[in-house]
């Protein structure tokens, strides 16, 4: 299976860097653990500058794929290239790839500063620059106060952010993040998301995560995996069909209206909606009270369809609970993956 997509909107890089057109490329990659097939002939191409999501249920092969990109795991077959080099070419990729591993513990005895400076020194930064890079990275994750703390004294959230800081040391070209907000409180998770968003255009970011809302919010594109195979990939807009359908959640009539004999849900003017220019069909899920309106993207756009559909619904005195463009990544993943 092959997948190559392009972002609809490409932001201008914040700074000029010599970056490879294809930041990460997997070609027919297979990984077996004994008899278990974890990744099955996966082909992916992540373009430089994207924020790219790896999506899938447990056991889909996300972390295995991520680990092969980071060079932790050797593929059983196929090729993994990062910035045009083999994923394990440490010398060529030194300082150009930052990785946040999901479950790696920080060395307990080290102070945060020692750990980060040591990592920066291994990226070939001289001591003075290494100290500066360590401070900058820690500042980026909001942890400058922990400079002298021992890693063993950090809370889970703090440790996660220090790990994130080491991934961002020296402004790498490719940043690989495995579950960057897992276990973080909502406030810190929000800060981390903002930080990831701020990387857009500066470097390529690949995020493996279960949090689909988060991925939908921050990613340009994503790949959906299941049972080690690529199910589909594309820009978030493509994946959610945001340019081809809208969904309106219909509200119930008020209790007073129901008491006066009104139906629970006002009749929906399906014919009027079908007449909206560009609309090809509609679906109504009575149980979920979800009205899906599908349209031809060449004739119209989502915003126009939303406006006209709402107009028709309001004219028919239908109460509206919410409106979304596309199906939502979560629904899309549910549709595409087993269980």
């Amino acid at each position, binding site marked *: 299976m092959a997948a190559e997509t392009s972002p609809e909107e490409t932001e201008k890089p914040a700074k000029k860097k010599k970056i490879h057109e294809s930041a990460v490329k997997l070609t027919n990659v297979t990984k077996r653990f004994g008899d278990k097939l974890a990744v099955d002939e996966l082909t992916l191409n992540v373009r430089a500058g994207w924020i790219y999501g790896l999506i899938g249920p447990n056991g889909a092969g996300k972390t295995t794929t991520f680990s092969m990109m980071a*060079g932790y795991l*050797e593929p059983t077959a196929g090729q993994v290239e990062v910035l045009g080099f083999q994923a394990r070419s440490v010398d060529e990729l030194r300082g150009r790839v930052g*990785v946040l*591993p999901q479950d790696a513990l920080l060395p307990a*005895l080290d102070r945060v500063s020692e750990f980060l400076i040591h990592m920066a020194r*291994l990226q070939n930064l001289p001591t003075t620059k290494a100290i500066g890079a360590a401070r900058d990275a820690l500042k980026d994750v909001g942890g400058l106060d922990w400079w002298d703390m021992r890693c063993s004294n950090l809370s889970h959230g703090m440790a996660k952010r220090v790990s994130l800081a080491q991934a961002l040391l020296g402004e790498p070209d490719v940043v690989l993040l495995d579950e960057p907000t897992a276990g973080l409180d909502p406030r810190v998770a929000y800060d981390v998301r903002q930080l990831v968003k701020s990387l857009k255009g500066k470097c390529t970011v690949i995020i493996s995560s279960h949090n689909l809302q988060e991925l939908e919010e921050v990613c340009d594109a994503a790949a959906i995996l299941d049972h080690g195979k690529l199910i589909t990939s594309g820009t978030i807009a493509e994946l959610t069909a945001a340019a081809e359908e809208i969904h309106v959640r219909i509200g119930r009539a008020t209790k007073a209206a129901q008491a006066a004999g009104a139906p629970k849900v006002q009749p929906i003017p399906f014919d009027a909606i079908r007449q909206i220019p560009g609309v090809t069909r509609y679906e109504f899920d009575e149980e979920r009270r979800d009205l899906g309106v599908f349209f031809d993207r060449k004739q119209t756009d989502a915003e126009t369809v939303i406006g006209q559909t709402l107009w028709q619904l309001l004219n028919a005195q239908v109460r509206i609970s919410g409106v979304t463009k596309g199906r939502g990544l979560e629904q899309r993943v549910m549709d595409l993956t087993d269980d």
Partner: protein
Amino acid sequence: MSPAAEISLVAGRELRKSIRSVKGIILGILTLLASFLTVLICIWIETGVRTKVGEGGTDAFRDAYEQAMVKNGTEAGVAHYVAHMPLSLILFLKALVWIGPLLVAVLGFDSVSGDLQHRSIRFWTVRSRRWSYLLGKFFGLWGIVSLVTLALTVISSIAVLIRGYITATDFFTWGARCWLISAFIVGTWASVATFVSSRFKTPLLALLATFAAFFCMWLPGFIGWVSRLTSAINDTSNDLHAQHVNDIRWYEYLYPNGYDDLLLSPKPMHVAAGFGACAVYMIVFVGLASALFAKKDV
């Protein structure tokens, strides 16, 4: 970045970590106490030997010791050399080569396996060649145990210097030589410990496997020692030490602590064989560990 720079960074961190870890500090104190006791025992043994020979003064004792060896069939040159070894220091060296592997096992079992267990290794593998990382760990372990043996050698040398069993010159020559010998032998044990540690993700298993590996290395040496002892009992004129260095069996090279006799020998060929054996040990085990680690999934 050169591999040498990577190795020195990893080794330097390993040294700092060992020095300030609770495990390292407790082990250091216990080792110092045990070694102090060993020094006292060595001095007590030397005092006993001197009394037996009937000479209290150092020079007179050496002359008597040399004559006794020549009388037992040892070559005159070798007898002169051996007689001028500070007996307490040599005895202490014998004790030190036993302490060395214990320290290596206890300080080194989790050097790599600990990083593998907690996956901290993942922070390093994206920045350092795997073989550099492993060599850094090896040199770090070798370095810290060698530092401990240096401290112990200095302490023991000062003790026998105060006692009057060695001169100031002996302190700098034999003291330094004893430390170098112990350090080289420690290097062989450290290479095996690093190899074993890199093969396990559970430090406890790595510790057990390290002791098992060390036992397997000790066994051929023990067999050689028993065989030699039997032959010495049957032939009372036989000099056990001379027989060892002149007729070392191939399998005895598997036991690094047996190299001390080679390294203490006055004959350059023996010393070269001892250093060569240490070097081969280190190259084989660190090389093997690096080759396997390069392919390992972390």
